């Protein structure tokens, strides 16, 4: 404990001690803990079971991705971004490819755009499935995990058939796609849509009206829209607090403006609202998939991109709506083959900042629920 004391002063403003001679308990949650979704270390200051304050210690998974970028060409860096948010690798790749395309001033052909949207939305569903399973597991419902993993498998099979990889797909290239779709790709996606629709109902049946689930999630980890904006929180967490902000609508990228879908928002900003928002988002993703798979145009899949990429001197910021929130890439080019600087704005990292605010005054069990509901991936937090 002395270690954590010296490491973290935790000198937050202490409320008046409710009991005489009550000792605060400082406890380490993580880095090895079943519910911190990787190697997050949370130092909790407890009064009994009540959380007085907490501090996150991150960096256990730091690989220096941003620094690596400075020593790789634009093409070579592309697979690295998959390793940040490894459960939504396709979204990471999309963000990076589009940012470099913006820098190069090229645009992917329409067919590539459609396939990108399909894969990205499939990935969004896969990411939300993983979130749902682990979040429910944290709260004590062990069964949804296996249901979601069973169904996530179908998505990963499509990825595997498309590009050979299941998790870190490296599906996109700067300027379009490397591979044409395989025979039966569209049919596979259609099959998945019809397979998946009843499955969402199945998940909801287990949880949405479950009394214990309601008690564990309603009014837990409340955060207001104002606080979200002040902290830079994005994604489903922001939307559950009532702010209708989705980059797919606000600053359409790829060809999202061609598709009809709704942005679900919550009212109270608690864990249950975040749960509902993500559940509806899965349904909306299915809606986008339906439209996209019906409208894939014929044509080339790769734009004219030079073999050796030397983007003009300048800088670009491009952000997309990753499953977890706004994923932004800020790339500075000095005109050489390697980026001068790449800065990633990872949604998990920014959202994690809200943990202290959301957990203060709640119980230990709620900390687990809130970590789960923030849907963080430590690979992305630490980079």
């Amino acid at each position: 404990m002395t270690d954590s004391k010296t490491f973290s002063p935790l000198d937050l403003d202490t409320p008046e001690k409710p009991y005489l001679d009550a000792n605060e308990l400082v406890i380490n949650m993580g880095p090895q803990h079943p519910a911190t979704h990787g190697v997050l270390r949370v130092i909790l200051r407890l009064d009994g079971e009540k959380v007085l304050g907490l501090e996150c210690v991150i960096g256990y998974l730091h690989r220096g991705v941003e620094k690596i970028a400075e020593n790789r060409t634009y093409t070579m860096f592309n697979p690295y971004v998959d390793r940040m948010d490894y459960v939504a690798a396709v979204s990471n790749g999309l963000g990076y490819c589009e940012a470099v395309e913006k820098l190069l001033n090229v645009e992917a052909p329409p067919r590539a755009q459609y396939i990108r949207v399909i894969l990205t939305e499939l990935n969004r569903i896969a990411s939300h499935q993983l979130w749902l399973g682990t979040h429910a597991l944290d709260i004590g419902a062990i069964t949804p995990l296996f249901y979601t993993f069973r169904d996530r498998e179908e998505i990963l099979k499509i990825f595997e058939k498309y590009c050979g990889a299941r998790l870190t797909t490296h599906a996109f290239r700067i300027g379009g796609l490397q591979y044409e779709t395989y025979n039966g790709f569209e049919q596979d996606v259609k099959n998945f849509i019809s397979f998946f629709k009843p499955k969402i109902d199945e998940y909801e049946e287990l949880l949405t009206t479950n009394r214990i689930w309601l008690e564990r999630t309603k009014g837990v980890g409340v955060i207001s829209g104002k606080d979200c904006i002040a902290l830079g929180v994005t994604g489903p967490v922001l939307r559950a607090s009532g702010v209708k902000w989705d980059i797919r609508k606000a600053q359409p990228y790829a060809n999202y403006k061609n598709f009809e879908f709704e942005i679900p928002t919550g009212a109270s900003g608690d864990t249950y609202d975040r749960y509902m928002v993500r559940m509806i988002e899965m349904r909306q993703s299915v809606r986008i998939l339906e439209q996209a798979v019906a409208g894939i145009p014929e044509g080339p899949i790769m734009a004219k991109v030079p073999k050796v990429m030397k983007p003009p001197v300048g800088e670009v910021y491009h952000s997309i709506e990753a499953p977890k929130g706004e994923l932004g890439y800020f790339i500075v080019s000095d005109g050489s083959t390697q980026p001068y600087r790449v800065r990633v704005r990872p949604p998990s990292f920014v959202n994690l900042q809200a943990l202290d605010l959301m957990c203060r005054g709640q119980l230990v069990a709620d900390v687990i629920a809130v970590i789960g509901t923030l849907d963080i991936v430590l690979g992305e937090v630490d980079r």
Partner: protein
Amino acid sequence: MQELLNYISSYLSSDQTPGGAGNFLWALIYILLVFAGLSVAVIAMNWLERKILAHMQVRLGPMRVGPHGLLQPFADALKLLLKEDIMPDEADKLIFWVAPFIVTLAAFTVFVVVPFGPTHAITDMNIGILFMLGVSSLSVLGIVMAGWASNSHYPLIGALRSSAQMVSYEVAMGLAVVSAILMTSLNQQGTGTLSMIGIVEAQQAQGTWFVFKLFPLGLIAFFIFAVAMVAETNRAPFDLPEAESELTAGFHTEYSGFRWSLFFLAEYSAMIAVSSIAVTLWMGGWLRPFPNALSGSTWNLVFSLFPGITFLFLAGMCFYSTARMPKHPYFRIQTAGLAIFGALLALIALVLFIPAVRVRIQDIYWFCIKVAAFMYLYIWYRGTFPRYRFDQLMKVGWKILLPMGLGVLILTAFFGLWSTTHTNLWHP
């Protein structure tokens, strides 16, 4: 020599429990039998829980060690026994050492009074149910000791939670039990009993399981007990003391190997113990369905065939699975093993069909079947429910179950008195 033989055989002709007959030797034999049976039940429960839970969760569960993972519990037991026994440096050595034994002792001792049949109990105490509740609540002591002696934060929180939880649910549990005991006194003499055997006999005399007595009062009391017993044994959805995702493993985080397996053993035998209380108090204990309405030699014969039929069914399932085993040479030993297991079950079934055996065994069978139903419920809960939060758990205990228990107790007393004095109102 003759005296010794007399001593041994004299019990066989008596119609009492060994404890009641004061026969020390037979009491010892019964203790060994119960202990062995309980160990087998825990092993079976371990395998069944994994398999049933797995099938609820679209997976297979253990499949590698033995056919359909049948030998998995043995492999696990071996692993636990061979594991290094770690004791933390900072731990309070003596208490750390003693805690698992207290928990195990408490969990096993209650079986002294569990009646598997009218004479199949180690002893019949006139305060049987009190003894059971009293001894089983001793296990909280062991848990607190384990949490405290580990000298670590997670076990401490786990132990605190567990003590608060067990103490508060015992109140509601006690009230439900008292209302069942009140029902035993609804007879001509107006005298009730605390003896476990007496409670079952009262149900037979009154012609109804206490679940259906003074409907719906018995049912509500039973429901309160059924909820409280899950909390009492720290199982999902009330498994906060060992909430894996919050406290890693709760009070036994620092335990490993054999000591840990004692906690495991105690948890499962405690589950069986509280289920036995529920079965004895509300579900007619060892009584077969409709012992009064469907009596007579034909019905007796039909119901006494059930144990054999059950084992035949299990054997049939084994043979069916044997036929479905992959035909690859790799699986030859497993297939043979499963066939042998099925043959064993079939053999047991045949033994259970022998008239002398089946008459003596049927009480035990009906008791075990009812307890097994509760065990299945435990697994089902675990597969379905999320976990309660600590304050919510307390809320359920104190604000819902306790008032309900009080209300049921008062109403049972009131309507019980009414029904014995105005018999024509309830039994026209």
